[in-house]
């Protein structure tokens, strides 16, 4: 039984597709939906700029999650939204553990080679370290329908 679903959201097209999937899933199982956005400081940071990036990123995600809240208004899904700071994969897994999440939904998006080398893909790390089921939603291609991989 799925009672709590966690969506890792970053505002990308892939995350938007993941949001739609998570809402469907939440409706099907009458599950609570947790929306989590992660404000990322620079990998290699410096004094004032790191603080500025975190603040800016938090404001950005607060706005995005507010928009998701509005979209959820008529869906009849119980939801709560949070913005945390850190590396996305780690924070998603950490949040899932702390809140007893049964199922994590994340979008899959491309990363630069440098990012992959430095921290790896978010979806890949969530899959590797999560203690619950994970669905990775790939962005719809023009020639094929999007599908969740579980």
């Amino acid at each position, binding site marked *: 039984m799925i009672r709590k679903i966690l969506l890792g959201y970053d505002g990308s097209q892939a995350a938007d597709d993941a949001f739609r999937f998570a809402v469907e899933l939440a409706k099907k199982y009458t599950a609570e939906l947790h929306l989590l956005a992660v404000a990322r400081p620079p990998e*290699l940071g410096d004094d004032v700029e*790191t603080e500025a990036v975190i603040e800016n990123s938090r404001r950005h995600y607060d706005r995005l999650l507010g928009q998701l809240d509005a979209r959820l208004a008529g869906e009849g899904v119980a939801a709560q939204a949070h913005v945390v700071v850190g*590396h996305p994969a780690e924070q998603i897994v950490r949040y899932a553990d702390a809140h007893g999440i049964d199922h994590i939904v994340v979008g899959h998006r491309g990363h630069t080679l*440098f*990012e992959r080398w430095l921290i790896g893909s978010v979806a890949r*790390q969530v*899959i590797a*370290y999560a203690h619950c089921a994970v669905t990775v939603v790939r962005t719809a291609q023009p020639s094929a329908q999007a599908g969740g991989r579980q």
Partner: protein
Amino acid sequence: MTGIWAQAALWLGLALVATLLSIGLRVATALSEIVVGTIAQLLIGAALGGVLLAGDASWLKFLAGAGAIVLTFLAGAELDPAVFRHKWKEAGAVGLVGFVSPFLVCAAAAHYLLGWSTDASWLAGVAMSTTSVAVVYAVMLEFGLNRTDYGKTVLAACFVNDLATVLALGFLFSPFSLKTLVFVAVAVVVFAILPWLTPRFFHRFGGRPSELEAKFLMLCLFGMGALASWADSEAVLPAYLIGMVLAGTVGKDHALIRRLRTLTFGLLTPFYFIRAGSLVSVPALVAAPAGLLVLLLTKMLAKVVGVYPVTKLYRSPDREAAYTTLLMSTGLTFGTISALFGLSHGVIDEGQYSALVAAVVGSAVVPTLIANAFFMPRHLLDEAVDAGDPMPPVARPQPSARRGT
């Protein structure tokens, strides 16, 4: 003016390239600006002559210097006075250890291993003694430690560490004279008055499109900077202290801080960091890489020796303690400010400056790479799947022990 506009366009073009690089690589813009400055000097200098970049033009030095001053002010304004008041004893002790340990070890390494003069060695100690408050703050947020006693103490300690660095830079190389006394006396009065005067002044006249707040703060920063320079000290010293004394008032005005950041990151600091990078001599670095390696390794070692035991004292778990310690080894802003101060005051030569800046850049890069390589994702590392698994199973059954189900 044509030449000046062309040079300004060239420098801002470099700043734009650096910003795009920093976005692509997810690194601090300051870091990419230093690197772009170094490479630009190397390439443009070799192809067209060093005159084209003209890093010594007075207008450019002013913009760069103003960038360092305002950036330092903003760094000071990040202080949380309530936490600092609550934890000043512990933070003072930890911060002083965090400063003294790399300061003495790096100065000794520069003197005895690299054969630098006494003053140059002290300057190396100062440049390598810094830490980056915001980087540590980000780590505390990640671990959720920013609300704990441990997190607050470490953060306040970072301020003490940087304050000690700035004080050392401001007073260690200036001759003690009547000018010093005048500077200190005026500074004490200004620092005492500003927290009272500033919010009242802003409340009465501020909040208008004429940006009175920014003008007032610039007046204070440049005025005290001029006094510090007159006393043969360093302008960033009063800037940091003004930031700290105004942290509880101006520092909490997020809209004003954001406007100041726009001015700083958009115009001033690109000139500062690109100039700092352009003064690095790559041939000198290649010819004598020992300086870079010795300074970088001794800084990291000294920070570990000084900070790690303190984190353990607070019973921080091993991996969090190691991660925090590693990231306390970063310190781009004050490191480059110290190095540039040394070069412009003739304390160090071009080769020593190059080694110092490269070590400062290295201290922002190497500890983070180590931390991410060995401590990611940190809190679950012990339960990590087999590293050899190229693509672990997509869905993983939930271990019952973890949830107690």
